[in-house]
């Protein structure tokens, strides 16, 4: 794979904790397999509870300084990261196609789509406004400010290995939060590649941490550790319910992007050509493996 890339440094092994590339404590690895050919693309670290805990602690330390940067400083770093993602779009797309299987044209599209979230939140973070509120008595003044929630855990699926994660990391960093991420074991290389670019853009050590490996152990540590203030998950409804239940013990905030069952309704007054075109693009994109794919075509 490395020789097919303009920048071979984007193909990573290991896990990314506190700004360094590390092995699992027990030295074990996970193969990442190309679903088209069945061949192994790379080996990544097979982390468990302890590595995840260290990643969370690194994110907690990094949060102290990252949360005190100004919105303007964070905006500049995120913008540089966006630029680097687009400059490396072709390499990132090749890695994505190799590990996920989607056609290269779709992979290029996903890189741009994922990068767009970084661009958007680089701009939006300068507009986190508070409120002043009329006072109920003359000796008081009432004000609301908004502050980042703290250390965030992000768990993402294999169908959009780039965009499902940038959509969580970008707003988190914009808000002054730090993150510990668990991409799907089937498709971790896209995340490991873009975090290399984040580092080059100036994201400090510990602000983004990424672990892969023993999914149940990592998930338990993320949902149980009190340092984590919010858990955001994209994946199946059953797993989402389980994570919400686990997060209840420490009353974490949660965001859940779970399964769909999209209807695609065509009424008798529709423009049929555009309906057919829309149905095809929505159904067969990513070989039908998206949570917004039309699942049931209803025809009048």
């Amino acid at each position, binding site marked *: 794979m490395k020789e097919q890339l303009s920048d071979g440094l984007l193909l990573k092994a290991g896990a990314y904790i506190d700004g360094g590339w590390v092995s699992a404590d027990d030295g074990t690895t996970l193969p990442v397999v190309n679903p*088209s050919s*069945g061949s192994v693309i790379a080996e990544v670290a097979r982390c468990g509870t302890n590595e995840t805990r260290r990643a969370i602690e690194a994110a907690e330390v990094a949060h102290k300084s990252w949360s005190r940067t100004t919105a303007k400083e964070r905006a500049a770093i995120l913008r540089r990261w966006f630029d680097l993602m687009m400059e490396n779009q072709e390499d990132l797309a090749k890695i994505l*196609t190799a590990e*996920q*299987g*989607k*056609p290269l044209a779709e*992979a290029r599209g996903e890189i741009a*789509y994922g990068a*767009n*979230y970084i*661009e958007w939140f680089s701009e*939006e*973070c300068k507009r986190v406004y508070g409120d002043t509120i009329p006072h109920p008595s003359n*000796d*008081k003044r*009432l*004000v*609301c*400010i*908004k*502050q980042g*929630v703290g250390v965030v855990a992000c768990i993402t699926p*294999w169908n959009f290995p780039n965009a499902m994660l940038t959509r969580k990391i970008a707003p988190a960093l914009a*808000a002054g939060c730090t993150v510990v991420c668990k991409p799907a074991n*089937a498709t971790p290389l896209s995340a490991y590649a873009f975090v290399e670019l984040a580092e080059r853009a100036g994201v400090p050590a510990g602000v983004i941490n990424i672990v892969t490996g023993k999914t149940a152990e990592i998930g338990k540590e993320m949902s149980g550790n009190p340092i984590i203030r*919010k858990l955001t998950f994209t994946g199946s*409804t059953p797993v989402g*319910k389980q994570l919400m239940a686990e997060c209840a013990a420490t009353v974490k905030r*949660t*965001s859940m*992007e*779970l*399964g*769909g*069952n*999209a*209807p*695609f*309704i065509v*009424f008798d*007054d*529709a423009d049929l050509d555009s309906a057919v075109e*829309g*149905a*095809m*693009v*929505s*159904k*067969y994109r990513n*070989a*039908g*493996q998206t*949570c*917004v794919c*039309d699942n*049931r075509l*209803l*025809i*009048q």
Partner: protein
Amino acid sequence: MAKLKVGDGISEGVTIGPLIDETAASDVMDFIKDATDKGATVVAGGSRAVQGGSFVEPTILTNVSEDMRVFKEEIFGPVAPLFSFKTEEDAIRMANNTEVGLASYFYSRDIGRVWRVAEALEYGIVGINEGLISNEMAPFGGVKESGQGREGSKYGLDDYLEIKYMCLGGLDQ
């Protein structure tokens, strides 16, 4: 359908890659079997693709009904079941007859119907005469068992922010 080309995603012109793994492919085949066992007709595809591995042919099913898994569950594969309905009320009832509510789509050029149906669909996202709905400037997220919170848009930032209320007292001398 003839425009769809199955193959390794890195090859020029391929529009349908493999499913993520062998389990995913056999899950999708189970959906097709459940439907055909209950009377569905395969009008296109319906089998593993010639590439083998986790490749599945783009498939269209007709004569499908609400008791089939393709109606109740997320297929996550290249299988399109075509259901028929008679009235607008039928369509809304069928569309909402599920525990989840992420994306929905409908095509109509009648302005009254567009508003009625869009408001009646119990979904976080409604594509109206549009199949591509996701972008960073819009709020992505679902209702019911599709989840909570929104990603992207101005709302997407709120998910990572806490509101702190500060009450300053003792202003009177």
